């Protein structure tokens, strides 16, 4: 480890650390524009010049380009270095328009800070300034090229780090232009990061344009709830409304960056139709009255039909506190155990995954970046968990290989091997790989499966690596798949590899929901209980079965049988509109701390960003603070589900007090994984709710690998995720909605040829619950025998009994215009 002296202080850093990073460890921020710890060094801006007094390098050099080496003596405050930097900033400022008063970056602008700190105050250049035409870059990013200082960060992120190819640096020298070939939305779903990266106001946040200065905002660390990865963000709110989310560094989860769904999905929080008042039978009533009515009706049903006739449905997007309080509440009242998933197959997949995730196997998102081989099974990273795609790209950039086994036309921003296997074949492939890793010769049996040689070749490559990671999705796979993926990891570890396991789950807190769900097949699916009339009253807590339940007709019929539907939610969802009694709840940005468990079991805390209440813009159109004084926050009635449940329990005719002991004590008595969480605020950062020990390998004997049997003349319809348009919360965001692509049905050319269909055809799909019309896209890079349909907001897709159903050829018909 090289040891060097910077400004008379010595420091020892790992080999390969740049001098600028070593100085940062000492708390010395050397001025910089192009260098970013997430992107690395480029040496483009010349701003980080320091003087090397002793050692292998002498004189003025760029601190971002020099590796720290033994014997270096560096001065960042040497007059020569300071003068050099002063000239650099003067050059960089030569063409800058000095429009800080009308620039959105003003106030948190690196260029402002370093102009001041660099000592450049007086303009000497009196010539004409260079000007550019700006481009339209889509709904997220605002372009203002005149402010550019050519640091290259945006291009280095866009093309280098993220791997998208439609934004870059054109021209040369002073004329250099950062933009697209022509006006148009940026194609990358990670484009928002160039806003955070831009050291000045060239690329600014469009939805947050002209809203406020940094000090006008209430800012707090927050979390992204738009997939299960749990990326860290910083939220900015003003006038009781969220305006902006930025990526926040987390060493173990997302690094520095986030995707655009996470960045712009927050606007559900200020949806104009968001429930703000308690409602009984569609009418807004006083809070206490609603509590009283709900308590009376619920206890009446529990008294007449038995406590088991009252059921609760929690969700995978609620905080762990809400999920746990709901369970405590149900137990205190003697009601049946709460469910957290409305789709039974989802619940079983999540539980199957959680049951197999143990601390030695689980890898974090950032650890994937150091893998030398990643096998992605049944997952479409860009659409299901976007930041995973960037982590995979980092692994690929470091020389690792990525192979994807998935029936969908998967796109990743780098070269990877894609074996389009249908669900069913995926499981066979995993079993074959497990057998292969155990030394079985896969090709010995002479299996007729044509893809087997490819899988065997993949298996050979897998066993030749050192740090492979198996990524397993839970969207379209069978319920046994997560277990098979874990088997493969255990078998690889037996073979001496440092193999890791990474699951994707449906929902930001699906892990918490899975932990709290009763083990095994303990409960009948909620829908059956509703249909048989066993459940007469349903309380839905921050869930919307209308969003994710695949059979709308069945859902409506089942809910029609209910005597009482109570909804607690912050979304203006169909469930809320239908409910007899509605209690508005708080989003994670408002008033209370909430914690979420991401897909690797990592417990993360989200403090509130603001106090909640009706956004000013919805009360006073001129966005002026109110001129009358109130003792309460207008629209501030929503409470946390925990508070509402406690009020309900206390209002019951036979009042029940929820146990007063600590939630975490209670949880750790229930499940030992909670034991190392003392409390929410004292939990060690990065604590994971997964067991430490690896149970002995439980391998089911691998059957002879063969493709799954499928009925002829049938296609398997998969209802899948898209980056924009299928995720519940982001679909309520007015910022995301204009970025959605129209949904399309995708099909393999071989199937399209059999059905005499081609790309662009309008197709009618006859399903159990009705007919659906959608445009067809024929995609080469997907599995034959499979139809891929996004569960898109704009599509009435809820016509099938499950997320995977068989569709006969005859039920796919071309619609003539």
């Amino acid at each position: 480890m090289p040891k060097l002296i910077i400004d008379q202080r010595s420091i020892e850093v790992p080999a390969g650390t740049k001098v600028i990073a070593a100085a940062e460890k000492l708390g010395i921020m050397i001025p910089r524009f192009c260098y970013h710890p997430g992107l690395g060094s480029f040496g483009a801006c010349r701003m980080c010049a320091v003087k090397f007094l002793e050692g292998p390098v002498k004189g003025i050099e760029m601190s971002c380009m020099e590796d720290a080496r033994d014997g270096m003596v560096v001065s960042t405050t040497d007059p020569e270095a300071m003068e050099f930097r002063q000239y650099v900033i003067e050059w960089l400022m030569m063409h800058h328009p000095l429009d800080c008063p009308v620039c959105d970056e003003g106030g948190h602008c690196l260029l402002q800070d370093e102009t001041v700190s660099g000592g450049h105050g007086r303009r000497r250049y009196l010539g004409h300034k260079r000007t550019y035409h700006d481009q339209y870059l889509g709904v997220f990013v605002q372009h203002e090229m005149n402010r550019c200082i050519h640091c290259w960060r945006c291009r280095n992120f866009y093309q280098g780090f993220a791997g998208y190819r439609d934004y870059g640096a054109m021209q040369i020298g002073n004329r250099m232009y950062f933009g697209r070939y022509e006006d148009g939305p940026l194609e990358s779903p990670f484009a928002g990061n160039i806003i955070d990266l831009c050291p000045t106001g060239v690329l600014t946040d469009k939805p947050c344009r002209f809203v406020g200065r940094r000090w006008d905002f209430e800012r707090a660390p927050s979390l992204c709830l738009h997939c299960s990865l749990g990326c860290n963000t910083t939220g900015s709110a003003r006038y009781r409304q969220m305006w902006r989310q930025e990526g926040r560094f987390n060493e173990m989860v997302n690094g520095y960056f986030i995707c655009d769904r996470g960045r712009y999905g927050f606007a559900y929080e200020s949806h104009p139709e968001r429930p703000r008042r308690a409602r009984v039978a569609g009418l807004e009533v006083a809070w206490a009255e609603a509590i009283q009515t709900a308590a009376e009706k619920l206890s009446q049903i529990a008294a007449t039909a038995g406590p088991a006739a009252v059921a609760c449905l929690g969700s995978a997007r609620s905080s762990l506190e809400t999920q746990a309080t709901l369970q405590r509440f149900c137990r205190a009242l003697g009601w049946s155990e709460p469910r957290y998933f409305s789709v039974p197959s989802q619940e079983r997949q999540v539980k199957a995954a959680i049951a197999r995730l143990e601390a030695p196997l689980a890898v974090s998102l950032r650890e994937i970046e150091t893998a030398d081989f990643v096998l992605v099974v049944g997952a479409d990273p860009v659409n299901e968990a976007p930041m995973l795609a960037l982590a995979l790209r980092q692994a690929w950039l470091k020389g690792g290989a990525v192979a994807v086994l998935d029936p969908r036309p998967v796109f990743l921003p780098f070269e990877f091997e894609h074996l389009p296997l249908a669900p069913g074949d995926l499981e066979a492939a995993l079993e074959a790989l497990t057998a292969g890793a155990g030394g079985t010769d896969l090709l010995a049996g002479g299996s007729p499966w044509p893809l087997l040689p490819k899988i065997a070749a993949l298996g050979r490559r897998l066993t030749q690596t050192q740090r492979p990671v198996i990524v397993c999705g839970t969207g379209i796979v069978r319920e046994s798949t997560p277990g098979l993926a874990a088997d493969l990891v255990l078998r690889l570890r037996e073979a001496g590899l440092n193999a890791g396991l990474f699951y994707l789950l449906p929902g930001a807190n699906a892990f918490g929901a899975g932990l709290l769900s009763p083990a095994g097949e303990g409960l009948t699916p909620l829908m059956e209980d509703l249909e048989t009339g066993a459940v007469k009253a349903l309380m839905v807590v921050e869930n919307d079965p209308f969003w994710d339940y695949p059979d709308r007709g069945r859902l409506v019929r089942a809910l029609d049988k209910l005597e009482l539907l109570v909804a607690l939610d912050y979304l203006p969802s169909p469930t809320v509109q239908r409910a007899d009694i509605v209690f508005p709840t708080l989003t994670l940005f408002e008033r209370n701390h909430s914690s979420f468990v991401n897909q690797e079991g990592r417990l993360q805390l989200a403090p509130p960003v603001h106090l909640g209440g009706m956004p000013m813009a919805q009360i006073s159109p001129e966005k002026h603070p109110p001129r009358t004084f109130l003792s309460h926050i207008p629209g501030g009635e929503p409470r946390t589900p925990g508070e509402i449940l406690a009020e309900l329990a206390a209002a019951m005719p036979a009042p029940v007090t929820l146990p007063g002991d600590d939630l975490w004590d209670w949880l750790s008595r229930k499940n030992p994984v909670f034991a190392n969480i003392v409390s929410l605020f004292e939990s060690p950062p990065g604590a994971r709710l997964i067991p430490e020990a690896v149970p002995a390998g439980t391998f089911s004997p691998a059957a002879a690998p063969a493709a799954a049997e499928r009925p002829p003349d049938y296609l398997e319809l998969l209802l899948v995720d898209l980056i924009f348009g299928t995720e519940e919360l982001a679909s309520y965001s007015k910022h995301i909605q204009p970025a959605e692509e129209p949904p399309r049905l995708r099909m393999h050319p071989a199937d399209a040829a059999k059905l005499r269909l081609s790309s662009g055809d309008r197709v009618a799909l006859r399903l159990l619950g009705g007919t659906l019309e959608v445009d067809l896209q024929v995609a080469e890079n997907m599995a034959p025998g499979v139809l891929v349909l996004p569960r898109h907001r704009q599509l009435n897709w809820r016509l099938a009994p499950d997320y995977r159903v068989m569709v006969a050829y005859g039920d796919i018909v071309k619609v003539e215009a």
Partner: protein
Amino acid sequence: MQAEIAVAEHPREQAINIMYAVQGHYGYLPDEGLLEAAELLDLTPLELEELATFYDFIYRRPVGKYVIHVCDGVVCWMFHENSVFEYLCQKLGVCAGEISADGLFTVLPTACIGFCDHAPAMLVNGRLYGPLTPLLIDEILEKLKTEYCDLVVCK
């Protein structure tokens, strides 16, 4: 062109040659030529535009029959008595990048062309000229106007 790309290990290697070929055909690299070249090379239009606009000798706008590349290097500047560049512009009645009225000439500055021992220098139709004086420039222009010669796209 497709054959040229096919032999390359990475299509991108051939980007410059392909752009020159398109430029040889049109006289400059028009948008439709760039889009077609990008498709052949398996690059996005932006990626090819990054390369095209980096190089002085690829013209993204129409140019005259002869493009006069006046050396903008330090040594040439040292030897300028009066600016060669301005003299040329004045003589031809154009600004940088414009086409002269007879359609023959476009004047562009270029990075050092390595002819420093004959500074100030310029490059026209693949030939180097220098040290330049107003008299010599007049002569060269006259010769280019009157004498037939093969056009050199790249040398």
